[in-house]
């Protein structure tokens, strides 16, 4: 009897609970997405609309500020610089990580433990503290203000090496033995067998490297001075001065810098998230 009476009430309570939960989920998502929405709205706001009180968050489409930025800034150059630096970094990181990861996973040689420690200990060095000596070394190597200094220091990644090592360790030993019996060398084996089979690792390392390369700011700020080779992030920081309080133009420039990363992320978010989550378990293991 009492049981029957309670039944609908309980359902009601359950429903209100999940409703509350979904409300929280949506609020959180909106909070995180809204600033990005604001970029778009501000970039395409009408001239006076930006400075209205109270602020106007409704979407509008006045492309004049955006067109101005497109036409009057060298954004294509900065973008090309960023793409070139990020792309090259990704390719190099993949190469160095796969090779080193393979050596640490599959080969036995004297000093393997020590080498592995050298690879791991790099993440203990605080990046901020090393900037000054890194600058001095770049100076001595005559690498200041070059593409090379934006790429080479990031061409090796502890995370990449560890991930590849883990993946290669998971491959059956007989894969290599079968290749070896047939006279296949290490490099050909890596290229034709190990790397294709480690595709998830390749994707994860490539994406995370690309994102962090795309987002570099302090490093190129210090190491480069000529605008012809600087990336978009440094250029944005210049624009902040150039456009002062012209928020529509600033937002337009920001929009230009954001769009490629956001598109890439939306296309590949599953892989990226899996890569980050995997990094966590990798460290704990």
């Amino acid at each position, binding site marked *: 009897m009492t049981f029957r009476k309670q039944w609908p009430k309980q359902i009601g309570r359950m429903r209100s609970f999940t409703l509350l939960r*979904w409300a*929280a989920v949506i609020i*959180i*998502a909106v909070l*995180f997405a*809204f*600033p*990005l929405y*604001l970029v778009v709205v*501000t970039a395409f706001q009408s001239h006076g609309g930006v*400075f209205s*009180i*109270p602020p106007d968050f409704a979407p509008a489409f006045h492309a004049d500020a955006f067109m101005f930025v497109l036409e009057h800034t060298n954004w294509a150059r900065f973008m090309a610089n960023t793409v070139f630096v990020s792309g090259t970094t990704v390719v190099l990181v993949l190469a*160095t990580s796969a*090779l*080193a990861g393979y*050596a640490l996973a599959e*080969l036995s*040689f004297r000093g393997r433990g020590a*080498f592995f420690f*050298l*690879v791991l200990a*790099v993440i203990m060095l*605080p990046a*901020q*503290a*090393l*900037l*000054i*000596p890194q*600058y*001095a*070394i770049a100076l001595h190597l005559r690498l200041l203000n070059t593409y090379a200094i934006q790429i*080479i*220091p990031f*061409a*090796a990644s502890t995370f990449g090496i560890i991930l590849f090592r883990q993946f290669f360790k998971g491959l059956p030993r007989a894969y290599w033995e079968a290749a070896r019996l047939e006279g296949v060398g*290490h490099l050909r084996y890596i290229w034709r067998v190990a790397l294709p089979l480690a595709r998830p690792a390749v994707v994860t390392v490539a994406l995370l490297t690309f994102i962090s390369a795309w*987002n570099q*700011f*302090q490093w190129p700020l210090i190491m480069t001075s000529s605008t012809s080779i600087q990336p978009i*992030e440094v250029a*944005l*920081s210049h624009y902040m*001065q150039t456009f*002062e309080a012209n*928020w529509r133009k*600033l*937002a337009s420039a*920001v929009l230009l*810098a*954001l769009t490629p*990363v956001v598109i890439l992320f*939306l296309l590949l*978010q599953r892989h*990226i998230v899996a890569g*980050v*989550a995997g990094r*966590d378990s990798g460290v*704990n293991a």
Partner: protein
Amino acid sequence: MSLLQERAELAGSARQRRERPTMTRSAQARRARRIRHLKDHLVAYGLLSPALAVFVVFFYVPAAYLVYISFFHWGVLSSSTSFVGLENFRRLFAQPLFWHALATSGYYTLVMIPATTLLALGISLVLKEAVTARRGGVWRAAVFLPHVTPVVATSIIWVWIFNPQFGLANFVLEKLHLPALGWLDTTQWALPAVMIDSLWHSLGLYVIIFLAGLANVPRELVEVARLDGARRSRIFRRVILPLLSPTTFFVVILATVNSWQAFSQIYTMTGGPHGGAGGPAFSTTTDALLVYQTAFSFDHFSLAAAMALVLFVIILLLTVIQKWISNKVVFYR
């Protein structure tokens, strides 16, 4: 001939035959083996060398160099380098701004660690159910998206949000019937504004890490507790939280190191239209920022190097202390 004798003889002659050729070719064999051994090592070192070269040239050598510079009077371009012992450190410690920057960094980090950890944990708990739902990845992606955006680009938007007159922040405060704030123009609220930007930008990463940790909590343990009649809050405290402690520890370490080294968002939000970064009135000048400015704005490399070394030691100490604490608190399965 008895069987045993026959066997022994056969074995003996076999041994003799074995030994004879071994003697004559042992040197040659040893050489072949050594060459093969060497070749294997060359392959291994060859495969490792590109990565190691980068690490050594751009990380290990600089780390050693940093220590060297900080004990010398040294300029990037000046040829006169002289050993000054602890002089750089003495001058550094005599500077009130250094202590101020240290305090600012400490303040920033001390707020960011609990804020990051608690918010990330809370959000991941809220998202957990939504993520397992069909197409739940959308919510996770929305939270993670800010983390992949370039810091400078999005910090510019946060400057706009914190605009005292036309910004979103004060608009919201007004709707909540709270007094409007000067945000980046005031010494009191500039750093909190930076913190909000940083939280927005970084929380996604920590949420994903927590979600991965939560996914690893065995369902059975939670269900057993539920069958035992434990309340939700009790299950969370007694079952989920202990199992999540390695993840939490990882998040705390990561948040500490990232907070203490925060640069781009501070530089962007407090520089630009507001003049030299770190303002107003040095209220946002953290250690990391001061090192940068001392070296690259004021060309005082030795002093900056000494400062960087202090930064280095602090980060190392923090990590060690946290590791020590974790050994008592963290429960590893």
